[in-house]
């Protein structure tokens, strides 16, 4: 059983989407031990014992994650189907590179397809989330 099917069918966490099942679209991206993986290429048994974060677990105590906020503010989604994967990829990207350039963001989204937005607003959103997170850090 694929991890994506385990999440969707067994855990009924349907925020993780399927767009290709061949590791090419990124709609199924989740975090496994904090790293973005495509859950259509991971077997559920391979994930046994690992911590998995899906889009449903990104907000904390009802507060949206900075990436969720920025996606909303920057109109970084239209149909929303690619969005969970984009946000989780964004989280991983900013963890590795807290101050990315637009080019680095675009590069980081290599494995995620969006057919609606044309990506510009998604890059805007990740840029603005990076600023939000760094401000939050400074405050903390």
């Amino acid at each position, binding site marked *: 059983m694929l991890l994506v099917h385990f999440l*969707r069918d067994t855990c*009924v*966490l*349907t*925020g*993780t*989407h*399927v*767009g*290709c*099942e*061949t590791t*090419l*679209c990124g*709609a199924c991206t989740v975090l496994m031990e904090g790293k973005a993986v495509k859950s259509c290429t991971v077997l559920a048994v391979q994930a046994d014992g690992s911590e998995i974060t*899906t*889009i*449903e677990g*990104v*907000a904390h105590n009802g507060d*949206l994650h900075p990436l*969720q906020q920025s*996606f*909303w*503010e920057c*109109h970084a*989604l*239209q*149909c*929303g*189907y*690619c*969005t*969970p994967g984009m*946000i989780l990829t964004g989280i991983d990207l900013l963890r590795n590179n807290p101050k990315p350039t*637009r*080019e680095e*963001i*675009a*590069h980081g*989204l*290599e494995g*995620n*397809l*969006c*057919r*609606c*937005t*044309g*990506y*510009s*607003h*998604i*890059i805007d959103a990740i840029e603005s989330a990076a600023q939000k997170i760094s401000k939050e850090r400074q405050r903390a």
Partner: protein
Amino acid sequence: MTVSKRTGYFGKSIKRVEDPRLIKGIATYVDDLRLAGTLHTMILRSPYAHAKILSIQTGAAAALEGVVGVFTGTDINPNCGLLPCAAEAPDLKSPKHTVLANGRVYYVGHPVAVVVAADRYAARDALDLIEVDYDSLPVVSDPEKALQDGSPLTHPELGTNVAFTWSVASGDLDAEFAKADRIIKQRMVHQRLTPMAIEPRGCVASYNAGDGALTLWTSTQIPHLIRTLLPGMIGIPENRIRIVAPEVGGGFGSKLNLYVEEALCSHLSMRLKAPIKWIESRRENAMATIHGRDQVGEYEIAVKKNGTILAIRAKTIADIGSYLQLLTPAIPTLTGLMLPGCYKMNAIRMDVTGVYTHKMSTDAYRGAGRPEASYAIERIMDLVAADLGLDRIKLRLKHFPKPDKFPFHTASGLTYDSGNYRATLKKAQKLASWDTLLKRQAKERKSGKLFGVGVSTYVEICALGPSKMMAAGGWEWGCVRIEMSGKVTAITGVTPHGQGQETSFAQIVADHLGVPMEDIVVCRGDTSVAHYGRDTYGSRATALGGTALIMCIDKIVAKARQLAAHLLRAKVEDVVFRDGQFLVKGAPKTNIGWATLAQEAYLAKNLPANFEPGLEASSFFEPTNCTYPFGTHIVAVEVDRSTGEVKIRDYVAVDDCGHQVNPLLVEGQVQGGIAHSLGQALFERTVYDEEGQLLTGEFMDYPLPRAKDIPDYVMGSTVTPSPSNPMGIKGVGEAGTIGATPAIANAVMDALAPLGIRHLDLPLLPEKIWRAINDR
């Protein structure tokens, strides 16, 4: 109509009300539905483009644990009607489009059998156990070859591969060609494209035997049209069918259709008395969801030496695949109608031949026939300028109708509502620093670089459209209800799937009622809630659906005014409505708001004589004309001489879609549209080989634009209101896709011009460019 100044939502970039559920991952797409007792289906599809089915053995599959049934055409087709096509053409020949193959297959992906099982794994395993014996038959996959004598026939029983012919003609073409100093000719291939919404199609059908009623949740743009058409296939009347488009993960025209799977699942649910689910795989999406474009055009342009374009003659072959889907024959007619673009000319003629081939059907893909037109005419403008040694900007300006010439009658017989083409062009030139850009180009060229600058000044047809020109009604419906609490429910007949009308319609309704946006809920996409509608396509939703809601509000305000007068003990004539309050003229303190009015209207204890309780109204809006958005895109590209690779350096887009309800959403639509263009211009193409095998069945072989392909945009707009609807909206869903492709193509051809390369067909893949450079 009074629009509240206090609320002032119209024209503001407001973040979307639909987003919280989407960014939290708690929205419900069709595959997210979990109905108790659901059975899962998988469809066995033909690996051949043309073959006779000699036998199908289903025994082993049916015997597999978990499998409920395996069905073939013999079981299904006698119980289901044929798939309808809503578009007409005078001499249209249509093959019988059965739900499953009827002894013969006509394209790779043609559904042959269906497995129903307790879960998707059992269904998937069972597919492998079905044995089909095929006898392969001669294939035709090239539309031009399909027209040659002796070509294999797609449907032998039709006796021809010609599905239909259609022409648009006006003016004295021969006389104009006789007057010409020169005839410029060019052949252009508009390659086949695959829409590739990231959410594939899918549906869940649930039949309630007690009510004799069916609910179908389907990933569609057109629940209402499906409700109209499905009864003819499954034998349940329209008023016992409920279609729901839940959250839909992108459409781009590919979900503007009634598909066999929707009828199949509905039928199976009736037959097996259980909810039936089918979810398309990506591979199926590539082979069995409609494709777009696929025209070959020969264009002849009659010109005077001074550049005056007298007339255009075009002959187009449209590859429509093996079957007619919902609007298949209508798509190339839009190309013919829009071929003159935003230019004056005296005569035009376009003859279209629709041709059957052993491939998936073509139909409406973002732009639907208009991208072919804008690409052809914008390439033509550049070719004419190049051949006559004229400036391409001056040539365009010379042929623009002036703003005071609107409504403008085109050579193809359309009436453009309003326009100021010069204004978008000038603004785009300014944003692009045109003169500096040309200097930069000269410098880059001097240093040996292949640097090109491209322009397109496009116009498109939107807000489709008056019912007279539509297959099934071009009106739109809406309903507004002030609830007893004073909250507002707005129900629309359009079916957004990413465009954001839950937000833009809330903005419109809030302003017109003078209430906060937060008090409004916009319902859409469920035919049991939105009773009627013509749905979302052709950039029609905001212009038409939004207007229908305003008409409802006008009715409600008129009614509420009577109630207010009664309650305020004033004459109706003395009551005015302003900013959400009904006030008595001269006594502004005497006022009453929606909450009180709604309570009184529903409690109905103190109403004027003959006053119907409640505060609700519904309306149908029938537009008088389509709208014609336009704009100018300017692109600078650099072509790598050694690899043929194209890099976009600058991108300027100035679009005029009339008044904008929410500029942020407009920007999103334009950027998304440009991305489709970028793919079309540079690398997207659907490929079938001679045997009709699909070579682009996955994202691997059909790459979509990625984030790194996207340039930084400079975006602007002008506002030329449309007189076709009261808000002056034109529509913007397809603008990017229609305007950008020719701009990018013109830029690349401009980069290659110094090498003497005149024209290359799309997509402008590095290999094609490299060969053109090196084969000289």
